[in-house]
Structures are given as structure tokens and as C-alpha cells.
């Protein structure tokens, strides 16, 4: 999860361009995480120590972890911890940017420590994406105000990001939420949640982006936007809202109901209350997630 918000951080601080970020997101799936990247992120080594080991690796045929232990930069316990985390895919984005030469190891090292400070991420959080850590980063990143339902909105968005990763993919960067009440939509699929937490929820994007989003979810190639394509997006929304409803019932003892989904084309959304528009930039286009609460 952190790599998505880290991408946004790099973009906002003009450390990388949107094009470089998109390119790195695409290649990160093929990249394996390097121990040096993990060591910097965990705070076990600094950038110059990593450079020294990388230089040494060009002369001797030894593994990074072994050399770092020999030089006393890391304990074998620390190396084992990193090896265990190597498979989790964490920070592949940063590594892809370093590999491409868009960021130096030193820039990456500075960016990661600033980023962690800003979002209050503890080093050990890197290795497990717990719900608490996720909710904390979402509430730090988005500014959902001080309304009574802020906690619920934060839980909703945390779950949404998890479900996007689960059902669509992890090649995205979230942008900061904006407040809207009038919104021009090319293609919008919506669903109403009723009950103690009453909300209007929707997915909006242009047709080509909707088709690609639907293709990912349906796991089949959908090139045109027809009833089947919008129904696939509707099913994503329905599954997500369903899981949210289950969580609300189990954790908060609040029973909610879902209404049938609606799909509209070239329309202007005119909401009586302000809504949060949460843009998610995928490698294939930008999808806006809209959430408007009534209480």
C-alpha cells in the first residue's frame, strides 16, 4: 500500500514526473526487490553504505547480505528480516525509479525518510500492511474534515484501496481528494448505501479507462463500453460496498442496505451535499471514486 502513496509523494514534491512514475509502475511488477533498497527503507543502512556494497559486489562474487554482515553494517538477524520482506513487493516502485536512473540512491533515501516522517510510518510497518497502519496512512493522506462520519469515511476509503489492489491491480497512484457538488461525468456507475451511514458511491472515468478497468476486473478483454462492461464495473462497486457493509455490521454493529447500481453516460452529477472525489491514477487512465455522505 505504501508504494502507492509514496508515488504520490514523489510526484507532489516534483522528484519525478508523471511519465517517469507511470513507467516505473509498469516495470515494478517485473522487478525483484533489492536488499539494498530494503536496508535503506528499514533504516539498517544508509545510502553510502549501500553504494559501497554495490561497488564491492562488482569485484567479488558475494551476496549483498553477506558483504553487509562482513562489514558490520547489518546483523544476520537484520538480513534475515529483510530477506523475509523481499517477497512482499514493498517499495518496488522506488527501486524501479532508481534502476531507471530517475532517482539516485541518496535521493531515494531522503525521500523515504521524509515520507515516513510526514505520514508517521514506523519502520516495522514496512513489512506488514496491517489495517491499523492502512487507516493511519489514509487519514494522514486524505483530509476528510472533522465531521462525525470521518472515521467511517476513512474506513471506507482504506477498504476501497485494498479492494482496488485485490481486484484491479497495484499499478496506481492516489491523488488528494477534492470536494465537488457539480461534476461532469463521461461514464458513471453508482450505488446508494442506506441506513445509519447513508452514502452515494460511484466510479467515474472516460470510456476507454472504464473499459480497461472492467477488463481487469472481469479478467477478459473488453474493448467497448456496453451494458456488460458497465455491469462489470457495477459488480466491483457492489462487491466493495458489500464488504464494507459486512465490516460495518461486524465491527461497528451498524446494519446497512445496498441499492441496485445505476449506470449513466455523459451526465452532470448534481449533488445536494458536497462529495469527496478521490482520483486514482492507473497506468491506463484516471478513475474518480466519488463518495457523498448524508449525515
Amino acid at each position, binding site marked *: 500500500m505504501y508504494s502507492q502513496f509514496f508515488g504520490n509523494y514523489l510526484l507532489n514534491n516534483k522528484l519525478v514526473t508523471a511519465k517517469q512514475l507511470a513507467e516505473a509502475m509498469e516495470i515494478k511488477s517485473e522487478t525483484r526487490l533489492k536488499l539494498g533498497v530494503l536496508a535503506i527503507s528499514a533504516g539498517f543502512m544508509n545510502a553510502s553504505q549501500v553504494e559501497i556494497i554495490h561497488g564491492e559486489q562488482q569485484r567479488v562474487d558475494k551476496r549483498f547480505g553477506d558483504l553487509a554482515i562482513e562489514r558490520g553494517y547489518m546483523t544476520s538477524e537484520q538480513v534475515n528480516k529483510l530477506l523475509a520482506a523481499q517477497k512482499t513487493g514493498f517499495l518496488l516502485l522506488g527501486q524501479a525509479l532508481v534502476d531507471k536512473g530517475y532517482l539516485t540512491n541518496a535521493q531515494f533515501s531522503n525521500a523515504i525518510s521524509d515520507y515516513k516522517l510526514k505520514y508517521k510510518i514506523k519502520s516495522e510497518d514496512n513489512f506488514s500492511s496491517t489495517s491499523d497502519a492502512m487507516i493511519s496512512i489514509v487519514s494522514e493522506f486524505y483530509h476528510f474534515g472533522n465531521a462525525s462520519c470521518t472515521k467511517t469515511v476513512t474506513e471506507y476509503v482504506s477498504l476501497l484501496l485494498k479492494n482496488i489492489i485485490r481486484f484491479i491491480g497495484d499499478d496506481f497512484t492516489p491523488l488528494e481528494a477534492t470536494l465537488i457538488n457539480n461534476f461532469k461525468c463521461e461514464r458513471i456507475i453508482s450505488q446508494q448505501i442506506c441506513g445509519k451511514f447513508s452514502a452515494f458511491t460511484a466510479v467515474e472515468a472516460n470510456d476507454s479507462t472504464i473499459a480497461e478497468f472492467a477488463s481487469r476486473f*472481469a479478467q477478459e478483454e473488453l474493448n467497448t463500453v456496453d451494458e*456488460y462492461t458497465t*455491469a462489470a464495473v457495477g459488480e466491483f462497486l457492489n*462487491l466493495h460496498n*458489500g464488504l464494507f457493509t459486512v465490516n460495518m*455490521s461486524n465491527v461497528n454493529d451498524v446494519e446497512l442496505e*445496498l441499492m*441496485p*447500481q445505476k449506470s449513466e453516460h455523459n451526465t452532470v452529477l448534481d449533488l445536494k451535499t458536497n462529495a469527496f472525489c478521490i482520483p486514482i491514477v492507473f497506468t491506463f487512465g484516471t478513475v474518480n471514486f466519488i463518495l457523498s455522505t448524508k449525515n
Partner: protein
Amino acid sequence: MTIDQIKVLISDDSVFARKKLKDYILSLGVAEVLEANDGQEAIDLYKENKPDVVFMDIIMPKKTGIEAVTEILAFDSKAKVVMASSVGTQKYLKDAITAGAYEFLQKPIDNNLVQKILQNIVKEG
């Protein structure tokens, strides 16, 4: 009864959800799969065709799945209606059971569970 002899009705307002389930059920060797777009159409199609099993979404326009299963059971007390919903809360489950549902599946539907249900329907004849 064998699997190619059973008749299945799928009721869901999502053409996507219907197609995914229908494709899987056809792949098991079922020959006849009917489709309804809302709760009322499900009731009408049930009365006309008397399917061996119904897969019923809960959140649908016109009539909900709960309303539809109640009406179907009033017409045929032996009807086997499997409820399928993305909302797997105790309340939804209770409503489905109270209405007389045969089974409850949470979406995304696990195909293995669909296969087991159909095998039971075949066994029960």
C-alpha cells in the same frame, strides 16, 4: 436425474454477474439456463418453467430477491432457491433463511460451492 437434465434459473440485475455464473454452470454440463433481470421476472419465469434450482441475487430493482423467494415459495413450497449476495451480514443471512432460502452464497461466488449445490440437486432428484 443427471446434471444435463436439470434446469437452472439465474436472477440478477447485472448482466455481468449472470454471464459469469451461467458460463460456469453450462461448463458443468447443465443444458438449460434461464435468466431473469429482476425479482418480478424471476417469479414469472419460475411459474412458467419450474426450474430445479434458482440462483437469486438479493439487491435487485422492482422486487428484491427476498420478496421474490417469498412469492416463489408461496407458489411452490418445494422450490430450491439459492440466495447470492455481496452483503454477507447476519441480517441478510437471517432474512434469506426466514424467507425459506435453500442456501446462501456470498459474492464473489465460489464456483466450487455452486458445483456442490448442483450435485446435491441432482442427488435429491
